[in-house]
């Protein structure tokens, strides 16, 4: 049997002494804060939706217009996050590894989509890609229509997600030891072997984090999308807009129904991404 004293010590291990004083106060504050800011609103949402009952919720979700809005929202968000994960890596790599005139400026510019009020971004994108806009007009001659199509939504979502993808991988790229690449080269590996086997694998968790953040941001994006999307039901209507429309119709139950489904899908996605990360981190042996 384990002596009582030792058992007590293990039980209270989480109360390790630290620089921040007053564990009870800090812990209580953490709980209250998280509860007020995150948990209670989410619970309210679920409670609201529960007034629908299961069959009511089912009806809301299986509505053709809702389904297509969810498909557009999550599908395009996934695609945009995927594209951002790739190009974010490239942008971060260039910003860290190369020194060129204007590097600092470019470095700051990466944060702009993040800092800009989303409505401003939306207006800019809509003006740019409108059929008579700077880019919209030449593109329309090529037969590519951007505004009021899913493509327009996609562009807006890529725009708002980029900073997340860049900023999460950047510190890790900066940390890569040049000697690792040199070691790989002395062992006879080609540059592409070095890239795929030595440089990229340790970056995978960060790339995934960037993907998850860009995805989460894109799913909830509203302001930058509405102007360029045109919000045509079944074609370019995203789920957050549909929620607003339902609210304007005073259909609160319908709105919360969509919201709960979005919450569930987002939660499941983040869970899966976290699981993948835990797995890959364990594989790297520093979990």
């Amino acid at each position: 049997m384990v002596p009582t004293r030792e058992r007590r010590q293990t039980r209270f291990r989480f109360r390790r002494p630290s620089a921040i004083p007053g564990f009870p106060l800090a812990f209580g504050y953490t709980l209250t804060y998280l509860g007020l800011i995150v948990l209670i609103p989410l619970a309210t949402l679920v409670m609201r939706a529960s007034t629908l009952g299961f069959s009511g919720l089912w009806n809301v979700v299986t509505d053709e217009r809702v389904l297509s809005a969810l498909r557009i929202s999550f599908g395009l968000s996934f695609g945009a996050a995927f594209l951002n994960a790739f190009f974010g890596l490239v942008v971060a790599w260039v910003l860290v590894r190369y020194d060129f005139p204007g590097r600092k400026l470019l470095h700051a510019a990466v944060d702009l989509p993040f800092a800009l009020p989303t409505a401003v971004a939306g207006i800019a994108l809509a003006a740019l890609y409108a059929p008579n806009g700077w880019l919209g007009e030449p593109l329309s001659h090529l037969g590519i229509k951007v505004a009021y199509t899913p493509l327009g939504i996609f562009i807006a979502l890529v725009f708002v997600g980029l900073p997340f993808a860049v900023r999460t991988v950047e510190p890790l790229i900066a940390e890569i030891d040049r000697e690792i690449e040199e070691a790989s080269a002395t062992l006879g590996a080609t540059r592409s072997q070095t890239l795929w086997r030595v440089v990229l694998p340790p970056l995978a968790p960060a790339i995934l984090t960037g993907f998850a953040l860009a995805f989460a941001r894109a799913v909830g994006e509203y302001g930058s999308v509405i102007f360029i999307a045109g919000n045509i039901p079944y074609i370019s209507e995203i789920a957050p807009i549909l929620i607003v429309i339902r609210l304007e119709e005073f259909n609160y139950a319908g709105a919360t129904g969509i919201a709960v489904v979005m919450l569930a899908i987002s939660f499941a996605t983040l869970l899966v991404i976290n699981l993948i990360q835990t797995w890959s981190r364990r594989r790297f042996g520093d979990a």
Partner: protein
Amino acid sequence: MEIRVEHLSKDFAETAALRDVSVTVRSGELMALLGPSGSGKTTLLRVIAGLEVPDEGRVLFGDEDATHVPVQNRGVGFVFQHYALFRHMTVTQNISYGLRVRRRADRPGADEIDTRVRSLLALVQLEGLGARFPAQLSGGQRQRVALARALAVEPRVLLLDEPFGALDAKVRKDLRRWLREIHEHTGQTTVFVTHDQDEALELADRVAILKDGRIEQVGTPEQVHETPATPFVMSFIGDTTRLPVRARGGSLWYEETPLSLAAPDQGDGPTDLYLRPWDVAFADTAEAGTLSGTILTIRRSAAGRRASISLIPSGQIIEVELPIASLAAVRDPILLRILRGKAFPASEQRGA
């Protein structure tokens, strides 16, 4: 594999520069590149490896001019000071990496890779740790993995950049002896960089001493210690005191005291006499050639006791190893006789 480096120069390197460096590493030899930081020893090693391209000069592996052979094809094993292990790979994967990246035609089969990894793990005494990740190993173990990884590709030469620099003193000593054993076992031509003269003298067959991108002396540990070519080598290898003396007619004078040292090759004029702490003995009675002084401090080291002595009347300070039985104490007046020393013409850059 003999390595010859001829008239190598490199400027504007990220590391230190090299100026007209020529040196030959004999086949099967263990050579140390020794020098203070900024002397260019690591740059020289990286040029040999192909990680840096020289501005001028050639690197020959045997008769082959390897100067422009890319690092991938040069057949060198390189061990980095901070190990540079692939942290997302296990020890086994790290060691087999060099074999697994080979083209299909040159790649050994899975069984053969397995056998080779196992024998390398045995060589570096890490049996049973093949499934660990680098983060789960101690510093000394990581450095041994790095060595096994470098040896796995059967390199023509093995190059080590301050291999023990990041380890603590005890582990360093063990690994030093162990590297010597491995070298005797494999007979691999090996060059290693160090700033630690003990390490260089203890480990190497020959030592090349660098300063400011130039080679000062190449020789066996015995040669560089006993017959240093320059004042810098003298003062870098072991502790020294520099005593400003004067050569007159083949003998040396410290101020008005004739020292009982012959310096027949020394031209008349100001001369620097370099002394090891054990080149000076205590004298009982004042006679011709003795110097007098006062003990300033006595320090204990692992090897013995060291006294700093201020000479009278000049105030010049010299370091002297105290005899084991000596009862001398701080502030005692003392008589000294200089037994040996190495004279060089007085230079402007004193002390070096």
